[in-house]
């Protein structure tokens, strides 16, 4: 997904000279072709996220479109105030690309894992928050980012994640994608948890549970209309995300569902990382297992609700 994302930055920049790239001491040869072919629009700055965000804002105020890339924890937490004031208050076209959202950097420990990025970034006015499910979806997203009117945060997964979306899934920023439709339960997923949701759909079917799967790649602006349309007629709603249960997709969905005041009561559950610092290394997969962000847990949750 990261590879596709950066390849798309390069391709888009080739035909649009408003596009600039700023990296923060990334790996050697990152976007080498971009640097070689368009050196005056390629910046590799030092480990200085606060400065880079301000610098990107200044260039964007001059009409440029900036793609800024580093590890997700650093591009969100480290420079949060610059994102709020320099990017969002000025409402400029800067696209933050965060590597390794969630628990991708499990072997590197809690300093590098990013389990609260969606929560903090979605709290800022004007900002959009997008977590594509796979590289193909990233390919559909990237051309749309160029002229999106405000700042954007793109959350990247591990890379080489299974492809679960299809070309039939059209992509519009801010529009959720209903991938499966069923009357018994609604599963709301974002990013890589779409695959877990789709697997759970198949398993639930074997238990005669018909579920809907809503892929909310854009957590902000949230597609409230679509969410309510799918939530209205199901008795069970479960969200699943590779993110803290505090403030992420589940919270965003809960806010909307609760205020909808449906006549029929809903059973509701957020599946995500509990409100703790992950205290193990291992891998993204092992931590997903540890925190039960799994098909098994999703299925059992829905089966319990549907009893």
């Amino acid at each position: 997904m990261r590879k596709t994302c950066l390849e798309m930055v390069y391709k888009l920049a080739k035909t649009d000279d408003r596009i600039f790239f700023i990296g923060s001491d990334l790996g050697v040869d990152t976007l080498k072709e971009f640097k070689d072919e368009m050196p005056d629009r390629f910046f590799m700055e030092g480990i200085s996220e606060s400065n880079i965000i301000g610098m990107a804002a200044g260039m964007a105020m001059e009409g440029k479109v900036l793609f800024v890339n580093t590890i997700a924890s650093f591009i969100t937490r480290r420079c949060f105030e610059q994102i709020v004031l320099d990017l969002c208050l000025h409402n400029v076209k800067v696209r933050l690309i965060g590597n390794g959202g969630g628990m991708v950097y499990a072997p590197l420990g809690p300093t590098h894992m990013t389990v609260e990025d969606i929560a903090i970034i979605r709290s800022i006015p004007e900002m959009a928050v997008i977590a594509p499910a796979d590289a193909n979806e990233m390919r559909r997203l990237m051309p749309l980012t160029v002229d999106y009117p405000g700042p954007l945060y793109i959350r990247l997964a591990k890379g080489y994640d299974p492809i679960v979306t299809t070309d039939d899934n059209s992509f519009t920023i801010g529009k959720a994608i209903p991938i499966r439709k069923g009357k018994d339960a609604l599963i709301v997923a974002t990013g890589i948890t779409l695959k877990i949701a789709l697997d759970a759909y198949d398993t639930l079917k074997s238990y005669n549970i018909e579920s809907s799967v809503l892929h909310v790649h854009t957590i902000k602006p949230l597609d409230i209309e679509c969410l309510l349309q799918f939530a209205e007629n199901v008795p069970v709603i479960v969200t699943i995300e590779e993110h803290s249960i505090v403030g992420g997709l589940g919270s965003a969905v809960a806010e909307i569902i609760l205020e909808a005041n449906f006549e029929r009561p809903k059973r509701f559950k957020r599946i995500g990382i509990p409100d703790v610092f992950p205290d193990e290394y291992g891998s993204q997969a092992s931590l997903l297992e540890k925190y039960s962000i799994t098909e098994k847990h999703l299925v059992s949750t829905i089966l319990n609700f549907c009893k």
Partner: protein
Amino acid sequence: MKTFHTEIEDAAQALDERSKALRKKIVMVMDKAGRGHLASALSLVEIVRVLYDDILKYDSNNPQWPMRDRFILSKGHGCLALYVILAEKGFFPESELWRFCKKDGLLGGHPEKKIPGVEASTGSLGHGFSVGLGFALNAIYEKAEYRTIVVLGDGECNEGSVWEAALSAGKHKLNNLTIIVDYNKYQSYGSTQEVQDLEPFLDKWKSFGFAVADVDGHDIKELRTILYSLPLDSDKPNAVICHTVKGKGISFVENNLSWHHKSKLSESEIQKLLASVEAY
């Protein structure tokens, strides 16, 4: 090593009528609003005056004129000094000054981009330099002749982001970027020497790759001379350290920490402030 802490007290340099008039206007705005960072604005008056009278290219009828020089007051709390100049130059009607911080006013306690003539919203310290860096890099890319000038406070230079930006400006050899520091030697809690000493300040800027000059920030001629001579070096960004006096022009406000946040001034206090400017 040259330091200036010992020279703070030698203030009392005469101010001309224009500098006095600008200060009186600032006091009158504070009178109407009941608030404002008076002392932080007073140390800035000559810097913004010289910039807008003599140095910056701008068109107040077309604030977004592409060829304009970009000016950022990164120490946004000094905004009263900027607002009185912008009003005088016609960026917005003077009547806006009298609605400073009011519910329906254009002008708040820190500059915002929605104000004609303001390039970037500032107030939280340590932001304006990096935004200005972006302006300057854009000018290089576009081969545009506009210059970018950013005024920092001395207390603001406690922020790490200032030095991140300084590293980057030095790396890119941005001779079209000028940092002016309003070095009034005081921050909110005390003197800069006591709270977080910046010395050797000029050497710091030099070591970050800047061409550096220091001037008396209340001396119109000195300011004009140094700012006319920009860039100081064809291969380096510029840092002009302006030695100023916090509260300059009102004797009992000068270097008096209790005036950093002073608000709700009485009528008699306002009259004393105005009289003190006149008598300076």
